[in-house]
């Protein structure tokens, strides 16, 4: 499958034809922008197909299906948007509108994993979804919806509303108005139906969204999308077994743009603009650019531009993070791209080669950079109207897989709890307090946040994120502005098995 895309991209060579098909007002293209730079062909990582907005509107259909696909030369059962791993990249400008029809072509749901009457002690309030299941265990793995991760858009109606349900066989059209002042950077879309999130992202449902003005990327700077996924690599019969996919120890296959251990090419001195997204369910992915023979200049985190470019050696990618990085070939040769070892609480995750970087000698040195873009102003002490502690915990619960459920402020996800209730156009400081022995990358929808302290130690440059790790037995202090949009959304752990096991809480922005 992925080979065909590679070959297509190569076959079109440097021609600007692009096997374009027109969908509504949007331009869908199999053309890889890399091709203009004689990249992305055979033996080089290709970008996913892209869909551009046209005249202020991106109109398209995302159609998830379940199919057997060769991943690591083995057949794996994947859920994919539009038959792609990952789904197509959506390219929009601030002020654009997205009209996305989500056509759920996944098969009907299997019968519930555990019948409610097994647990007569639990009342109807514990049930979510149409069958007798709970908020602390996966269920209805083919029911879905859409979330526009990191985007600053309305959470209401048919916009970024994660409380919507799209059952197998049905369709729903999302309409998302992107504000004119939307941050410039990389975002992503993925399903967010509580109960099926881990299973669906764990089997491949994700895609990149790039928000940027015209001519953001200068013509001479190749843009490479690096979408890292970790699909469940079990035998086919077990791919949807919660005992497996809810575990950190489940076999997971690292892919980049759907390819298993691809090669990424660049020339010495040459620059490329990498839009890195870790679109996965559980494992962290620390990267070391110096080890890859690269010089790396970070310009954006989680879709928020840095105030000034910053040279980095290492980046810790938590599930859900994006990093916009300009890389430069520094050391010629073939280098491994390694998921660096990571201490995941009490578990040591070993290093893993996920790709190779081939740096060829004799490139043309370049000092190209994407156009400067605005960083939100720092959130000052004076702006803070309220400080809160948000306590993360775990609890034994016979309804949960492994009898282990996760909690926020002492309770597993409860759709009727609304005690996180900030006022519109205010700012608050939250300290996530992690009472568990495992790190939790906490994500807040709709508004980005500024990290001010980790374990009580101030972070000098106060970076912006929408997903940031709360260390095991530690704390993360953030500040966030609730701007532009009132309404209901959630905060949750982006280790998605934790989310499906209850580590999510409602937020209601009131006017």
């Amino acid at each position: 499958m992925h080979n065909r895309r590679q070959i297509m991209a190569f076959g079109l060579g440097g021609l600007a034809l692009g096997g374009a098909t027109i969908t509504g007002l949007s331009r869908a293209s199999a053309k890889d922008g890399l091709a203009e730079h004689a990249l992305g062909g055979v033996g080089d990582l290709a970008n996913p197909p892209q869909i551009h907005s046209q005249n202020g509107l991106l109109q398209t259909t995302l159609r998830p299906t379940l199919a057997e696909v060769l991943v690591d030369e083995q057949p794996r059962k994947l859920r994919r948007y539009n038959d792609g791993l990952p789904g197509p990249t959506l390219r929009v400008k601030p002020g654009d509108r997205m009209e996305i029809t989500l056509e759920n072509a996944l098969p009907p749901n299997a019968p519930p994993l555990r019948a409610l009457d097994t647990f007569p002690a639990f009342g109807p309030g514990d049930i979510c979804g149409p069958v007798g299941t709970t908020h602390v265990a996966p269920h209805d793995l083919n029911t879905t919806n859409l979330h526009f991760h990191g985007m600053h858009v309305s959470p209401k109606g048919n916009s970024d509303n994660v409380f919507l349900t799209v059952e197998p066989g049905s369709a729903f059209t999302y309409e998302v108005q992107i504000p004119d002042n939307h941050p410039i950077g990389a975002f992503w879309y993925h399903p967010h139906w509580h109960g099926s999130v881990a299973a669906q992202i764990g089997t491949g449902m994700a895609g990149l969204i790039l928000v940027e003005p015209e001519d953001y990327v200068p013509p001479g700077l190749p843009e490479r999308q690096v979408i890292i996924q970790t699909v469940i690599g079990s035998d086919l019969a077990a791919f949807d077994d919660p005992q497996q996919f809810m575990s950190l120890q489940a076999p997971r296959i690292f892919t980049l743009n759907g390819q298993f251990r691809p090669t990424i090419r660049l020339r010495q001195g040459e620059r490329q603009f990498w839009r890195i997204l870790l679109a996965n369910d559980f494992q962290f992915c620390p990267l070391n650019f110096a080890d890859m023979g690269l010089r790396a200049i970070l310009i954006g985190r989680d879709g928020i531009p840095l105030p000034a470019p910053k040279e980095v050696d290492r980046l810790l990618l938590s599930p859900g993070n994006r990093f916009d990085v300009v890389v430069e070939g520094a050391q010629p040769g073939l280098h491994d791209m390694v998921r660096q070892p990571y201490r995941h609480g009490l578990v040591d995750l070993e290093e893993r080669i996920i790709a190779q970087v081939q740096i060829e000698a004799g490139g043309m040195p370049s000092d190209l950079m994407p156009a400067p873009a605005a960083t939100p102003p720092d959130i000052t002490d004076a702006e803070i109207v309220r400080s809160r502690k948000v306590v993360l915990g775990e609890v034994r619960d016979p309804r949960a897989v492994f009898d282990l459920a996760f909690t926020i402020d002492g309770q597993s996800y409860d759709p009727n709890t609304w005690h996180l209730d900030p006022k519109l156009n205010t700012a608050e400081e939250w300290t996530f307090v992690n009472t568990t022995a495992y790190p939790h990358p906490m994500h807040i929808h709709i508004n980005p946040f500024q990290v001010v302290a980790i374990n009580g130690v101030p972070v000098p440059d106060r970076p912006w994120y929408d997903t940031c790790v709360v260390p095991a037995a530690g704390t993360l202090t953030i500040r966030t502005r609730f701007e532009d949009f009132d309404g209901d959304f959630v905060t949750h752990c982006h280790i998605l098995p934790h989310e499906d096991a209850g580590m999510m809480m409602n937020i209601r922005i009131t006017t």
Partner: protein
Amino acid sequence: MSILRLAFAAFAVAAAPVLAEVQTVNAQTCLSCHSVDGVAHIDHVPIIHGQSETYLRHALHAYKSGQRSGGTADVMQAVAQDLSAAQIDQLAAFFGTDASIVQTAPISHLIKASAEGADGRLVYLTTKEGSARVVESRFNGDYFRVAPYVESEKFLTFCSIATMAAVLNSFEDALKRPIDTARYPYPYFTQDNIFNEDNQQVKTFEGVVTDGLTLDQIGLFLTHLDVRPSTIFADENSIEHMRNAIMEGLSDPAVRVILNYNRGIVGQNGSGHVSPIAAYHQPSNSVLVLDVAGYKYPPAWIPMDMLYKAMLDVDTSSKRSRGLALVRTF
């Protein structure tokens, strides 16, 4: 809203009778970060095993009151805020060692207390009479084979693990023993490497920390350690049969005898317990038990009739009686 679910599966903390009234705290919450093996795996998390009980109590109160807060102290504050004073005492006692108790309650007090509870019928090895019985005994070979290898259990619930390690090490080169990196190149069973892959399937390290092993599980563990165990349950056998099994086991240099009994019934502090049997003394009809909780009691000669009653006790985990495991090398 409580962070600790206090009513959950009891941890062994409540074993001491004085704590019976206190609602059991789920010490698993503490162990998940402070670690079950006493080694901190999270960089900023301190080792609390063996910390002063007084210090731990004060620290928990300081977290609970908010006196200690900010940074990672917020984590402990969230954990401690719902603990009662009694629960704080309980946890401090579990993780702590109180220097003042060590000074004011030497082991002779404990022995005296237990001897009184058992009508003076327990004879400790450290007494003149106790030592004399070893010399007089015609079934004392295992004392000299096993005693050098006895190490105290590393947790209150690790009596079975410490016992297996001592017994297996006593086979010396007759048994293939694992080599730890820490002791390379010398083979040795430890209370960690008993947990090989097969045994972790039976019960994980953390699981044993929580509630120990039953006699059946001890048998299963041993089958995965290249020895042949046979378990003998007291409620299926007469006292004569049990005594004969002990005597036969002690007579055969290729066999060791593991005892599972309720030490409360013989008048000692505590309840379900496991230790190796080292000798049998015919004139007094008593059995020498090499206690793997050496921090509580030295080895004791226990009269056979008391020991039989202590083996008849029903293990609440297995719902079966206790008894013996005879361990034979191939």
